[in-house]
């Protein structure tokens, strides 16, 4: 009977490869986890491994020793995750942001279709750079992006961002700088300043904590940036035109609810795109920057994507 086999769910661990404090991706997951703790009254813990590969396996081991449900962002230790999941088939593993499957097919994956929202970010950037009514913009058809690393996820972002911009004006070119760091904010700022110097009016930051430097550079120059992962529009008011959000917290909350409700099925791949609200382009702000016409145009593209009228091309490494 379902009651007898209902899995234990008292202790929940959120295990991440990086570290909290990015104001973005990891923090958004933490928000969902906190909500879970509040609404369901379960014990939660967060384990960060600070991008240190030596910590991955011990952390995973500590997590299964402690918890019943493990939400994990497993960049870099997919292998160990599979192995451990096979060893502990009765524990619930939910892998966030990538698709990982073990032999016993017990890992549920939450896949965010970041191309959809990044495409919208490209549309927004293209509209902004050619909008003469925005203060400080120049007629040059150039937009920028600052990535933390050259990795497939970031490249997927840039790929879709470029496509989105081209959908508005194929002559727009995209200049990208990579920092090789997710936390060197000074370098993030310098990269953004160089892009502005080159003539870009809008820079999309895809660099976690280092991206804070991009936003501050926009404020300093009186130009524009696009935030990432969470709504960063009010961090530098008047200069962040939109944020490409990835609601990891929402995914955590929904999956945990499904476990509680008994509708959870292990081994699935849950796709979080624009339609499900897992990713989005959030333009809300205390004082929105984009004109309402531009916002309406972006919202129309969003609807077209959700309706399937526009097919956003997925990045293939």
């Amino acid at each position: 009977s379902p009651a007898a086999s209902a899995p234990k769910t008292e202790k929940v661990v959120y295990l991440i490869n990086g570290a909290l404090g990015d104001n973005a991706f990891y923090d958004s997951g933490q928000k969902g986890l906190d909500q879970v703790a509040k609404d369901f009254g379960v014990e939660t813990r967060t384990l960060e491994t600070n991008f240190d590969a030596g910590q991955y396996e011990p952390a995973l081991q500590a997590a299964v020793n402690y918890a019943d449900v493990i939400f994990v962002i497993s960049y870099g230790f997919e292998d160990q995750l599979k192995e451990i999941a096979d060893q502990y088939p009765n524990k619930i593993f939910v892998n966030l942001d990538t698709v990982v499957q073990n032999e016993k097919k017990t890992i549920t994956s939450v896949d965010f279709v970041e191309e959809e929202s990044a495409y919208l970010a490209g549309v927004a950037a293209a509209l902004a750079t050619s909008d003469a009514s925005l203060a400080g913009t120049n007629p040059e058809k150039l937009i920028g992006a600052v990535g933390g690393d050259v990795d497939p996820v970031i490249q997927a972002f840039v790929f879709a961002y470029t496509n989105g911009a081209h959908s508005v004006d194929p002559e727009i070119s995209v200049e990208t700088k990579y920092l090789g760091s997710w936390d060197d904010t000074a370098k993030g700022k310098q990269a953004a300043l160089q892009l502005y110097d080159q003539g870009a009016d809008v820079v999309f930051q895809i660099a976690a904590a280092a991206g804070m430097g991009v936003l501050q550079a926009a404020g300093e120059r009186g130009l524009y940036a696009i935030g990432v992962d969470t709504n960063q529009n009010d961090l530098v008011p008047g200069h962040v035109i939109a944020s490409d959000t990835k609601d990891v917290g929402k995914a955590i909350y929904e999956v945990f609810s499904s476990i509680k409700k008994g509708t959870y099925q292990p081994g699935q791949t849950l796709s979080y795109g624009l339609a499900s609200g897992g990713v989005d382009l959030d333009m809300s702000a205390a004082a929105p920057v984009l004109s309402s016409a531009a916002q309406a145009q972006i919202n129309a593209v969003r609807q077209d994507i959700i309706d399937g009228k526009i097919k956003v091309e997925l990045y293939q490494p």
Partner: protein
Amino acid sequence: MNIFKGLINGMIAGATPILLAALGGTYTYYAGIFNIAMEGMMLAGAFGAVLGSYFFHSWLAGLLCAILGSTLLALIFILFAVVLKTDEFITGIALNLFAVGATTYLLRQIFAVKGAFSSPEILPIPRLHLAGLEKVPVLGEILSGQNLLVYLMLAALLLSVYVIFKTRFGLRLRAAGYNAPSLDSSGVRTAVIRVWALLICGVLCGLAGAYLSLGYVTLFSENMSAGRGWISLAAVILVNGNPWGIALISLLFGFTDGLGLWLQQSLPSQFTAMVPYLATLAALYFYSMRRKRLAR
């Protein structure tokens, strides 16, 4: 023109923290202390700056707290290396580890965040617009409108040249490094001179840290000194403590740092990121060859 200006501004921005910390290192270098704790002092300064600015809603308080933070580290250095006579290299290494651990730990304890802390409540150190300088053709745009700390750095550079080579303290300072027993027997306690050198180094590293967290950007992130203290040390050693030489090396480093990002148009970013370190090696090469030639 814009791009050129950007590169110059980037160079100044990159050089400022390194030069400030390296000037601090000059004092300890001349005092005969092998001080590798600049990295940690800078980090403690950056943290103190954000702490002060956030809680007192004043960048000046931030600046003072930055100095307090790095001076605290200098005091620990003094306690161990000068008072207890622990090996300086070891003390430095331990202090650098301590600074990373303690700032991360405190970030979590005080602000309940990890990784980075930013908030509109943190007031940045302002830029200074000097009306007179703005009018200078071509250079005016660069000379004016820099961060207050950039001007402070210039002042610190000139002041250091004066203090080290023209004052009574400077004479004693250099004697402490050249021949400590001689200074002691002249009736000046070397230990006291070293304490002052370390305190000055603390103050300058505090300014360097403040520039990182309140000057260039306005936030604190874990380990945000990111090896700049080591580069400062390399600069000091490379030119045997000469402040002008240090200024040159710092500018070189600042320039190559920005150049690296530019070169991404033609090279993978990992290679462009190496540029500053390769430049340091090149500087070391030329310096060593020059020394070798002189020795011959």
